[in-house]
């Protein structure tokens, strides 16, 4: 197979983007099999015309330089690969964009974006929606004004997509989530760095996700997994393993929404989640606490809003033991259940809970712990048949929460339904092995490896 040198070269000439090898030092059409177009660094008109007259299965190689974008880069074809010269060499700069758009906005199967930076997008940095086969590799999504609530919402954002790989990338300074995987199936997120965001890395309503080797540093919250109410993709089979989650004490600068309620100093939470493994991670200096296992009732207390008509639910769900809703033919997914927390390392966290969070969770922790460190793993016990602050035998483990084998790790459950800042029920703080939470394996077996095509 040879590349279509003539066509690509002619098109480049037609777009007056005269080729210059010095502009393509790292990647060029010479490396590409199939249809390929080179766009000189900064040639916005050439880039936009190319993208809007694109045939499927075209590779676009961007030269060195900064593209001063006045509108989204909108891709609506399958098989498009968008490749720059490196995150420090090729930048799509949306500073000049007045319209309310995402930076790179994609719907198309088999999409790849690699070796470039997207900065100052009005909305999301790179949003890929409803696509099967998505690769983000060595890219950076960032905003040049750290901590600004007018920054865009999500940096790297695959949503409603299948077979997604995000690797070796950076997400910085997003006013919501830096790296946000939403409503996807079959996902690998590895070896990325998320920093300066409100939420560093979020896995939302997603099935079969393997999240490993990432570093979450200096966000409001590090790496989290959760379901939101009413979404037909019930999150399941999520592995958060071998990540570094440290110093996530950034002030919460979200302009609003659910994420604005996250306490600063949060390492990880699993909310309204099931079949989750949180293993082998290193937690350090997260001031409110390292790991919270909580139900979705903290963000939506009305259980009827969590009802899902079984006929509408995506994927396999009937092995999950979801409890029926009040309405016939519905189940609910607000509980967190079937979670293993093991082999993590905890250092220096939980010493300064956030007293400003609107849920007053940090206030509760201060009242309970005073100047002592908050336990490494906190469980809200929502859905448990029994709770006792003192007697292990009077605590149930209905939700199959398994905690143990962590270095420097402690555990508490808290009967959150009865807690408030004005009235506290003492936490249940067992010593290791934390019975009855001393199980070690998920119901239904361990989470399988995610296999991407």
């Amino acid at each position, binding site marked *: 197979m040879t590349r279509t040198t003539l066509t690509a070269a002619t098109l480049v000439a037609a777009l007056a983007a005269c080729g210059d090898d010095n502009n393509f030092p790292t990647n060029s059409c010479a490396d590409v099999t199939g249809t390929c177009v080179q766009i000189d660094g900064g040639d916005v008109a050439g880039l936009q015309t190319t993208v809007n*007259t694109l045939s499927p299965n075209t590779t676009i190689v961007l030269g060195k330089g900064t593209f001063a974008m006045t509108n989204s880069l909108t891709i609506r074809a399958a098989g498009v690969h968008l490749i720059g010269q490196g995150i420090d060499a090729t930048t799509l700069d949306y500073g000049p964009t007045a319209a309310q758009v995402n930076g790179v906005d994609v719907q198309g199967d088999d999409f790849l974006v690699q070796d470039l930076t997207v900065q100052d997008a009005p909305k999301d940095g790179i949003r890929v929606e409803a696509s099967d086969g998505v690769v983000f590799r060595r890219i950076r999504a960032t905003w040049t004004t750290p901590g600004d609530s007018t920054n865009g919402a999500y940096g790297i954002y695959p949503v409603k997509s299948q077979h997604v790989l995000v690797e070796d990338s950076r997400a910085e300074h997003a006013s919501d989530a830096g790296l946000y995987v939403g409503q996807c199936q079959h996902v690998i997120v590895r070896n990325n760095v998320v920093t300066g965001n409100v939420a560093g890395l979020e896995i939302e309503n997603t099935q079969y996700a393997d999240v490993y080797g990432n570093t979450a540093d200096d966000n409001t919250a590090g790496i989290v997994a959760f379901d939101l109410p009413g979404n037909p993709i019930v999150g399941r089979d999520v592995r958060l393993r071998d990540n570094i989650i440290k110093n996530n004490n950034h002030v919460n600068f979200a302009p609003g929404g659910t994420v604005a309620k996250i306490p600063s100093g949060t390492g990880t939470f699993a909310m309204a989640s099931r079949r989750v493994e949180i293993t082998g991670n290193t937690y350090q200096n997260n001031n409110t606490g390292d790991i919270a296992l909580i139900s979705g009732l903290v963000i939506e207390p009305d259980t009827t809003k969590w009802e899902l008509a079984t006929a509408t639910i995506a994927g396999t769900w009937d092995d999950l033991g979801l409890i029926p809703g009040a309405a016939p033919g519905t189940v609910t997914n607000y509980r967190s259940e079937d979670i293993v927390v093991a082999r993590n390392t905890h250092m220096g966290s939980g010493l300064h809970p956030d007293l400003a969070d609107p849920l007053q969770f940090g206030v509760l922790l201060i009242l309970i712990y005073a100047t002592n460190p908050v336990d490494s793993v906190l469980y809200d016990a929502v859905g448990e048949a029994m709770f006792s602050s003192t007697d292990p035998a009077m605590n149930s483990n209905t939700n199959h929460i398994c905690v143990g084998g962590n270095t420097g790790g402690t555990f508490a459950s808290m009967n959150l339904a009865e807690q408030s800042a004005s009235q506290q029920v003492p936490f249940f703080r067992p010593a290791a092995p934390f019975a009855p939470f001393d199980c070690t394996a998920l119901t239904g077996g361990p989470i399988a490896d995610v296999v991407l095509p």
Partner: protein
Amino acid sequence: MRRPLGRRGATLAGALAVALAGCGADDAGGGVDLSQPVHVDVTAPPPTKLSAYNLFAWDPATGYTFNPTDERVVPYDLNAPLFSDYALKQRAVYLPAGAAATYQPELVFDFPVGTVLLKNFAMAPDLRTPTVGMRLIETRLLVRYPDGWQPLPYVWNADQTDAELAPAGDFQVIAFTDDAGQARTANYLVPQKNQCETCHARKPTPTAAPAIVPIGPKARHLNRTYPFGGAVGTVNQLDRLAALGMLTGAPATATVPAAYDLRALETGGVAAIPPADLDAAARSYLDINCAHCHDPNAVQGITSQLFLGHDNTDLFRLGYCKRPGSAGAGTGGFEFDIVPGSPDTSILYFRLATETVGAMMPLLGRSVTHTKGAALVHAWIAAMPPVDCAAM
């Protein structure tokens, strides 16, 4: 993994032709000549000049003249028009000779191959006198090709003599005086070709792949009179299309539903809407401005589970005491989409009224607030019996 080249070469050649022609070649054949028929060739790449279609002539002094040949270009208006930064719009439909659209009671009509839906977007320095100094910004075409609708944006030149195909769209800062005498500045975006899907992509069924569809030409929007002039006079648009043989299957106009006519809002503001009509008027406004995304079969907006179509009877999904999924900056610090009786704490109103990028709705096509439209929605929510959403 790259796939073999195959037929892609031909497709790319088509793109190449566009790119080359876009560099200045003039294939229009000398501009519009209304003694000649309309020219639409769905087997060829789209012409780079709008004049090549020969659909209409535009003159600042006399306005629009639609091609009179065979009476196949028919101007029309909608009961409830989409707001686009106060742009002045003129719509028309062209159907090839002998072809007719098929009536649909709810969705957009079925249009035959070769159909052109055109919409001109113009601005004037002072919208209190819109015909003074009016300039065309862009003409958007939806052309029905054998494999579906193609959205084609054409941007008018500085001399206002023709418009050029602009797949990359355009961005213009436009200062004007609005219909209430206020100085406004719009960051006017001519959507790039691929952005047309933001509003025009729709799934035929909840599980089917999305396709490009028109939004306006539905029975309830077209069911109104239009001043066609001449011997025709002012008659119902559906009747006119049927009389020309351009629409089949339409029932008697009196039995066709009609969207609430928002002309009264545009002329008299919300004060001109009788209280008993507030619900119908606001729902009509939300339907045309929001429901192309906020609909169960839309692509964008589905995540919100907020459905603003005229026929949604689920008050929760209409926003009553509904928390948004992940609206971020879009909440304005408020908790519920609609707090009945309390527009100023309702996210829906906040997002319609704000001009903050990242918070405003709709996503595209509006950079300034539609003052009268926002006032209508404000009045609608204010008139609802109050509900304490937080207590529910």
